[in-house]
């Protein structure tokens, strides 16, 4: 770990101002990911601006949804009555992640900013464009059983590891951000994370100094029909091989609205828009679910060792939709 200056912010504006003054600085919230990366000199912050004293920990009702403070702990968020009642999909996804200890430390803002778990990213003896642009992608022709099948390129085949983010993608969350201009801006969740493109070192669209203050969820008609399915190598404390956040709303017996987001398959939470489009206006049958999954998965591009993910994701989409609708 490289030596760094530790600074404690007392207000959001102060935090933004402090970090803006330190171009190589970094915010510190739960630290569950950042500190590991700093110990291995994967992240090398000259300054840490500690956010944990900021009063951004509330979960509150909005007229048309809820607001979740950026610094609310994952465990508090997942167990909050407003979340459990109105967004069980989010609660379920968050509780499937990490361990109780980590969820007690990790914050909402930090969760969606966590870095990939690609082993090449964590091992500085190997090439990684995300860690060190221009060095190549170790996983592209290496060990890539857990890597991307959508939206990847030769630059980077890493996947985003967050479960929470998959649910937020499905729920059309909005990320509220402030910067040194003190203007608050709202980033729709679908636009928050990036695909690798030519800059795999950038996971999302935040600029230096930007501070997430809250994540908003709009009201929806999904609480009765949602499910988060996570397939992993062990029963707990493992990242998803594939996960599916599914949520549906009905008018009569027809699907009036549907959201499907996939985890473990791309550089960002992957909204299955083709599958959603297929299902709108149709009935909740296994046949339709399967056709929807096929529509989405036909565009998948597997690597040498992750071909199984195409079939697994297809089945997982069907299963999650069945679970959400009580048809399985």
């Amino acid at each position, binding site marked *: *770990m*490289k*030596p760094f200056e530790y600074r404690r912010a007392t207000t959001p504006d102060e935090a933004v101002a402090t970090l803006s003054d330190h171009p190589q600085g970094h915010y510190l919230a739960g630290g569950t990911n950042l500190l590991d990366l700093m*110990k291995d*000199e994967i992240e090398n912050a000259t300054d840490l601006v500690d956010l944990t004293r900021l009063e951004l920990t509330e979960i509150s009702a909005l007229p048309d949804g809820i607001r979740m403070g950026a610094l609310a702990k994952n465990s508090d968020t997942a167990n909050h009555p407003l979340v459990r009642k109105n967004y069980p999909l989010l609660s379920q996804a968050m509780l499937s992640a990490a361990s109780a200890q980590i969820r007690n430390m990790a914050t909402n803002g930090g969760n969606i900013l966590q870095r990939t*778990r690609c*082993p*090449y990213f*964590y*091992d*500085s*003896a*190997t090439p990684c464009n995300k860690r060190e642009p221009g060095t190549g992608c*170790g996983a592209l*022709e*290496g*060990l890539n*059983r857990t890597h991307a099948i959508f939206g990847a390129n030769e630059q980077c085949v890493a996947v985003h590891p967050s479960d929470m983010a998959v649910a937020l993608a499905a729920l059309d969350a909005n990320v509220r951000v402030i910067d040194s201009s003190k203007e608050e801006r709202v980033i729709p969740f679908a636009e928050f994370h990036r695909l690798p493109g030519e800059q795999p070192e950038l996971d999302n669209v935040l600029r230096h100094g930007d501070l997430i203050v809250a994540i908003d969820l709009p009201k929806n008609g999904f609480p009765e029909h949602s499910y988060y399915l996570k*397939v*992993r*190598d*062990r*029963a*707990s*404390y*493992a*990242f998803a*091989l594939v996960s599916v956040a599914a949520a549906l709303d009905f008018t009569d017996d027809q699907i009036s609205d549907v959201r499907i987001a996939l985890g473990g398959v791309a550089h960002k939470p992957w909204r299955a828009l083709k599958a959603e489009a297929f299902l709108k206006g149709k009935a909740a049958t296994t046949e339709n679910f399967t056709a929807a999954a096929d529509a989405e998965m036909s565009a998948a591009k597997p690597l040498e060792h*992750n*071909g*199984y*993910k*195409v*079939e*697994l994701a*297809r*089945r*997982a989409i*069907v*299963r999650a939709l069945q679970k959400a609708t009580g048809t*399985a």
Partner: protein
Amino acid sequence: MRYIGKEMRRVEGLAKVTGRAKYSAEFEMPNLAYGYLLLSTIAKGSIKSLDIKEAETSPGVLGVFSHLNVPELLPIPDFGDGPEAKEFKAFQNNQISFNAQPVALVIAETFEQARYASRRIKVDYESEKPSTDFREHLDDAKETNAEKSPRERGDFANAFENAPVKIDHEYHIPIEHHNPIEPHGATAFWKDGKLTIFDKSQNVYQVRDQLSKWFQVKPENVDVISLFVGGAFGACLNVNYYPPLVALAAREIKRPVRLVYSRRQMFSGHGYRPDTWQKVSMAAEKNGKLLGISHRVVVNTSTFEDYSEDFAKVARSLYACPNVKTLYQNVPTDLPTPAAMRAPGAVSNMFALECAMDELSYALKMDPLELRLINYAETDPDSGKPFSSKALKECYRMGAEKFGWKDRKPEPRSMKDGDLLVGWGTATGVWPAMQQAASVQITLKVDGSAHVISSTTDIGPGTYTVMTMIAAEYLGLDAEKVRFELGDSRYPKAPSQGGSWTTASVGSAIFGAAKNIKAKLLNLAKEQNASPFASENPDEVEMLDGKMFPKSNPDQSVSIAELMGHVGLREITEIYDSKPSEEREKYASSAHGAQFVEVKVDPDLGTVRVTRVVEVTACGKIMNPKASHSQEIGGVIWGIGMALQEATEVDHRYGRMMNASLADYHVPVNADALSIETIFVEEEDKIINPLGVKGMGELGLVGIPAAIANAVYHATGIRVRDLPITPDKLISPRKA
């Protein structure tokens, strides 16, 4: 019996849960300096240059050790033909033989300063293409020097050719790492030419003897202490490369030095279960009688050392079979040398052998348990010797009953729980019942307490507790009056804590020492004519609660304190050297077990849950049922990991282990451990040792991976012969 056979809580439990138990890297001392290792980023080649200038001048740095100075400061001593001659030694030259090989050690005032400085070292390598995928070189596999035993009984080829039913399959187990929770580490200091080192070890004498050679000091001037070990599983059986480095650094900077591996450094720091490829061929009569077994085992090793954990020989003893051929071979790779890992060889070789038996049962359309009973070996088929005890048949019977095996439907995919596929599998476990020479010292004090010492270690099985129980039992004392200490090379010599032989070895020594103390007291009684039973034989006399009396007449007692006080004795000290008996040689001795496993498999998602395990083991006398059940439950959970999760993934382009963290190297979590029932069939074995005890720490794991793989086949009809059985291997490609 007051203690033996009864449940006893760990005597060191309170110290462990309150943090009073000090592990090797936890001993505080003034002026302590900290080390951090820099590891290579290539697998093969040499160091062209090592630039340590920036590291040396980095804040807090006290010293930098590497191949630039260590060969002069600490030349390799003459190890003769000993195994240590070939073991990896750090910093002795500029050659790189495996990835993540240590290339420098930085010592600094703080851990952070040492780690920071280590990363300021610039290494320029001459890199060569490594070879780490041993499966590409199976044709070059060679038998190791250690394996010269006869390899064939009967004529396998002929038997196989003419047999009516046969199977022939290949199996693969990837590299696995022990991953104990406590990372390896040591704290060392020198005082007046004497070295003291707190090391995480399973064999303090071996560490002492090697350090004595390295530093040219008498063995008695090296004290190796390992009071508590947070899991080892074989990872500390050998002297790893770091103890001489820590001792050297302490000598050179003239301060105590501590070094601890990081989790990543563990992966190249102590060996691993080798990459294992096996081929098993079996032939049988239509009635299930085995006609022939051929078992070939090939494991990877390093380029500088053979590695042997030959358990292929188990195929010659496990079942009654006239024609058996076994072969154990090595392929050198540019990786560190493997090491013993819980049930070394046994669990790997039994995985292949017991999956093959299962496959044969389907070929025969026969119940897999029945197949095993048909071929049950009543005497050891290899040596012809009788077993000193073997209650395996009872294990099969009891396990089948407890599990409900008779309700098993034979066809794969025939049992269901809702949409889940249910599979039932079985396998046999076996582990040799071994005993080694061991010494202990018992001091019985006039106040009615005893102090017992031995250099053995306690890597977790409950050694502190069971030795206390044995001493209390045979000295007739309350366990609270017995203080048992271990893990110090100043104490009488014990064997390494491996092979599941500690209780049989060290426990027998305590038994012997207690018996000699009783004889001494009896002599005192005889000399003091006041004794009411001067003519009794020691075996007919018992000590209990400060009194000694004839077993035939407990009322005729004499006070031990008075016996000792009469001649002014404050204490009686007895050192006892225990050895395996010659009688043992006439018998074959093993511990056995039968495992019954239920899995539930999600046919769409490929996820496997081990929902129920019944493990019945026969391993002689059960000393402490509480600790013994823990051992077997731990073995089952380890087997779940081996079957379904564990694999060290090597990127062969770089020869580098890529999942060197506990996030990426999966072992079971609580949510993976469901119903596990462990049952003992007690054997009364008077041959193996005076306590009648066989080892169990490894046995509990041996049959589990095969039983799980067999259950997965029964559930799904998919035979996975390449561990671990992760969901991707059960998701069949989509039908067109």
